[in-house]
């Protein structure tokens, strides 16, 4: 049961509404924190250092990310984002699976043991406010360091998962993305993005992810998002396109929902 809960949280994190602009080059103000049901906890440690992690997954997938600002470039706000992740424990948990009747439900065959491995991501982020909307561009390099033998048959060949873990099988990858955000009314906004992940040399060597969200700001402390994610990517068996989240038994797409909370640590002052 515990394993299923972890997988649900992980899946939620993969769909990733990621709002209140963690995608942008703007950092959280000092002492402010934000988090969502499936979102990482983000904290503005100082005006020039933002840290984030997934607290619910931290003990089975240690992870840490931070963002630092850089000099503005021709009207663009710039920052760099750096992440470390250690997915070995959660992958071995997933490989162990959950016994259901006489069967083992698992995403990785129990025959495989996942060795220690660390993922390092470094991204350059640029944001700009235009009359039409706020836009953000990002691009970076991902590295997968594996200590031991990682059997290529242990891959989880599912949308979002395969290409995120592909960096460990390929040792490196690139990511590029574009985000756009606009308020339609005082409280209602839309956020759309498109991300390209490249894994040169891997048999499933790219994926494109697109997300579209409606965001309703109830207050400066709470917001609600709903929308879809669209995935198109190449796998070792061919290409696949899918709207997500997808309910297999119903064979249908459903919108995802996310609630996000925010507070200032020392006062109720907001951004």
């Amino acid at each position: 049961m515990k394993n299923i809960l972890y997988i649900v949280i992980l899946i939620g994190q993969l769909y990733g509404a990621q709002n209140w602009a963690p995608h942008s080059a703007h950092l959280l103000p000092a002492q402010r924190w934000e988090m969502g049901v499936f979102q990482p906890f983000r904290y503005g440690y100082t005006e020039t250092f933002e840290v984030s992690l997934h607290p619910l997954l931290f003990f089975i997938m240690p992870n840490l990310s931070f963002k630092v600002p850089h000099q503005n470039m021709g009207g663009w706000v710039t920052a760099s984002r750096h992440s470390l992740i250690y997915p070995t424990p959660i992958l071995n948990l997933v490989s162990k699976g959950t016994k259901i009747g006489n069967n083992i439900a698992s995403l990785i065959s129990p025959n495989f043991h996942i060795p220690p491995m660390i993922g390092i991501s470094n991204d350059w982020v640029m944001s700009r406010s235009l009359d039409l909307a706020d836009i953000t561009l990002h691009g970076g390099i991902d590295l997968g360091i594996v200590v031991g033998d990682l059997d290529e048959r242990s891959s989880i060949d599912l949308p979002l998962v395969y290409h995120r873990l592909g960096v460990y099988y390929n040792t490196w990858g690139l990511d590029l993305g574009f985000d756009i955000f606009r308020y339609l009314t005082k409280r209602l906004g839309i956020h759309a993005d498109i991300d390209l992940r490249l894994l040169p040399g891997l048999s499933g060597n790219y994926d494109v992810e697109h997300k579209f969200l409606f965001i309703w700001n109830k207050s400066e402390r709470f917001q609600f998002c709903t929308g879809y994610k669209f995935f198109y990517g190449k796998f070792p068996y061919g290409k696949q396109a899918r709207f997500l989240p997808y309910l297999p038994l119903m064979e249908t797409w459903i919108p995802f929902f996310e609630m996000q909370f925010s507070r200032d640590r020392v006062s109720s002052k907001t951004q």
Partner: protein
Amino acid sequence: MNCRILLIGLTLFYSCEPFVNEFPNEISVAEMYESVAKTPAVATAAPQVITWNIRFGSARFPFYGDSCGDKVIAKKNDIKDNLDNIVAEINSLDLDIILLQEVDMFSKRSGYINQIQYLLDNTAMNYGCYASIWQADFIPNYGLGRVDLGNAILSKYELNDAERIQLQLRTDQSGLVQYFYLRRNILKVKIPNLNLYAINIHATAFATDDTKQKHIDKFIQVLADIDISGNRFIAGGDLNSLPPGAPVIDFCEHDMCTDENFHTKDKEPYHKEGSYFNNFSGEPDILQPLYASYIPGIPSQMMNNPEHLTHAPSTSNEQMGIKYDRKLDYLFTNIAEGWMAGSASTHQNLWPLSDHIPVSAVLNLTDD
């Protein structure tokens, strides 16, 4: 503009394949394949036909789903080596028509190889058709992953009008298990150069209800429809049924894994699934109507001979030294001249290549 956006959106939405293909239509068009380079073939009066359950090219891999194994995903190079061995046999036998069961197409467990294309491109077979019995983006059972398994017919000659005929689903499973489970079928195709139909079936193996009876009844019905309409057929496959009069109908103790126990009073299940052939009234004689109506590849007086047994799981050999203990694989035809005398063969020397032994025979079309 709005309509255009809506159209693009709908196109993208409906381009998504189902997670599990439930094959809702009773009859659908089968997939067609051709070899990259054709081998010239002239229609013969004595075409050689074979039926072979190739166990997804895994040979005697200790797969968890059968044979008491504990392995799930085979190495791609091992699958290729096994397919090369199958290719070598196909080429050495100089076959005209091949009925294949358990062919994997882009399945994770067999290295994502298009096995039909591989066989077509490496043998003298020019055309193929395929009907999937198990097609899912991801089977979460033991991390099996993507699966596409099915029946195929390969031929030197052109194939037309290939149909996938859906068979009844098992009724002894929960809805969740059934959703992720196999959807068996009959594959039917016309071979105009030989003026006959080829029919291939892989009937249920593990059902403990009367699903097998429904599968065999449907097979008989498909053959009868062809026969009544005055057409000719060769038919066969893995019927997962014993010949009438088989001396043994209970293989539970042969097939039992080391941690299993059957035939214990008041303990369920009493029999091992797939190892007991008397689950419903009449099961031991389930193939009698086929033998009564059509001409079998292996003549009925020989069908229960040890040299024509076609199956035993690897465990039987490992634990008891038994390589074959039952006949499950068959060929039939309604062509009056039947099969060439003495041409039928059960290729028991090919035991290492699969957990089923292929059965071949040469058709007699000399009256054409």
